[in-house]
């Protein structure tokens, strides 16, 4: 390995990536839904034409992979450079430097701009200016996360830039909007996992697939990959059962079974109790377990904090207090218990003339 020069290593790395992104080598374009069929056709058009592409979707990883698919399928020999700018993590100076290098290189190349709407106005202008330079021979592949235009700190993309980079537009919808793609995606991952585990032959039980189909996959492709990988490791026989899936997915199934058309109500008291409990726990954490300090942080008296902790089952009542409570229970009540219908903790004044 040490005999190979970095120049050759670079070429080999590009060819290896090209093989990886060859047909079937990534899950980013797997699916039978009309949206994925259209996306694959658009990718082929981008590969054949070299036109600029705007990729939009909810999964940043999938968008970047599709952009790489376009580059490596178009330039599979490893001769053409790929430049990449992840706007969310790149330094402000990095973008200008990359554009300068591309213009100076005066050769074919591909520029992937991830989260293009995060570019500042002057950077957008810089990109537009570079794209009109006669030395520019670069295919621009830009990605845009759906809904990111509504985030306040994102400058958004100018109309001119949107027009320049969206000769071909590829839209990758959310997994939740294309459930028919889940079975082929699951098969793709199972084949990969079996291959990686010395040609194991694990398969999915039908009811396991049902659970996977019901879940909404807010974490998109990476979450599906993670869930399948962990289920694959947990499975003991040759079949992956629903019990091998995380509990979260089972909760989703239960929830779907109870789903109604109208919005689900919440229990306000239970919700507020949970907020209160979270604040008490946080205060105790900040006070390193010192209850007096925690009470001071919360602005409540120490006895009240203790009562709250007892309710939360964090501390048990002192023996003296327990005895006192037991006495109260054993003795007949001196005053009648308020009826729940009269308002719980609210104390009612006697109505005039009632006496």
């Amino acid at each position, binding site marked *: 390995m040490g005999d190979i020069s970095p120049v050759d290593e670079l070429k080999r790395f590009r060819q290896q990536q090209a093989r990886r992104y060859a047909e079937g080598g990534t899950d980013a374009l797997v699916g039978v839904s009309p949206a994925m069929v259209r996306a694959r056709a658009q990718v082929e058009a981008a590969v054949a034409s070299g036109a600029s592409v705007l990729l939009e979707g909810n999964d940043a990883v999938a968008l970047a992979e599709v952009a790489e698919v376009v580059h490596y399928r178009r330039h599979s020999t490893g001769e053409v450079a790929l430049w990449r700018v992840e706007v969310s993590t790149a330094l402000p100076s990095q973008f200008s430097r990359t554009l300068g290098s591309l213009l100076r290189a005066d050769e074919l190349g591909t520029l992937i701009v991830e989260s293009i709407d995060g570019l500042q106005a002057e950077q957008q202008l810089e990109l537009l200016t570079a794209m009109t330079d006669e030395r520019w021979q670069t295919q621009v592949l830009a990605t845009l996360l759906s809904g990111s235009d509504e*985030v306040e700190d994102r400058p958004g993309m100018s109309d001119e830039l949107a027009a320049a980079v969206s000769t071909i537009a590829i839209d990758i919808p959310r997994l939740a909007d294309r459930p028919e793609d889940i079975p082929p995606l699951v098969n793709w991952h199972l084949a990969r996992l079996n291959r990686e585990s010395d040609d194991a032959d694990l398969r999915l039980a039908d009811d396991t697939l049902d659970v996977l189909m019901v879940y909404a996959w807010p974490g998109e492709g990476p979450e599906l990959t993670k869930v399948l990988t962990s289920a694959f490791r947990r499975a003991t026989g040759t079949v992956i059962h629903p019990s091998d899936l995380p509990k979260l997915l089972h909760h989703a199934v239960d929830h779907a079974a109870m789903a109604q058309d109208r919005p689900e109500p919440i229990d306000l008291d239970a919700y507020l109790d949970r907020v209160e409990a979270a604040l008490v726990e946080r205060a105790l954490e900040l006070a390193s377990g010192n209850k007096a300090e925690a009470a001071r942080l919360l602005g409540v008296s120490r006895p009240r904090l203790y009562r709250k902790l007892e309710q939360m089952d964090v501390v048990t009542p002192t023996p003296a207090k327990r005895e006192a409570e037991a006495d109260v229970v054993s003795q007949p009540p001196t005053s009648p218990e308020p009826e729940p219908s009269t308002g719980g903790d609210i104390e009612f004044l006697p109505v005039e003339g009632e006496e």
Partner: protein
Amino acid sequence: MTPCGLNFPWPRSGEAHLEVALMAHDPIWMAAVRQQVTRCRSSLQRPLPLVHVEKVSQLPPNSIRIVEVAGDRLSAIGDWLVATRNRHWPVVALLERSTCAPSSDRAAAMKLLYEAGAGIVLANVDTAGELLTLLSETARRAELQSTDPLDDLPLRCWDPAWQRRQRRLG
């Protein structure tokens, strides 16, 4: 990053432990990184731990990872970058000083690392100042993210549509 207190927002799990992880064996590079981290720490006036690991596989994913790359490890590090890249924490690659001496080799090595997904690649110690910019910028972004008050509600499992909408509006 967020000062400790009861008021929202509370620090997120990753952000409370923003740290730099270094896998390097060259004392010059190690000293240069330590110097930049110390400078960043004093300019931020917040803790920014620097941990040293022996192997690439020991680098924690939720940290700013800095890795020294020898000429004969280019391919392996390239594969590692492709496999472990994430979009929140940049990876910094440091070219080993004794290898990749000819400029064409150095340029090819840098290109490979960039194409594989490195955030920045530093070819010599003179350019270590860029590391300070990257650290400061990443810390600033992490802090900006923490100022979203609705994203840090204690009950993140409950995420109704009206809350998502409001978060988008800032």
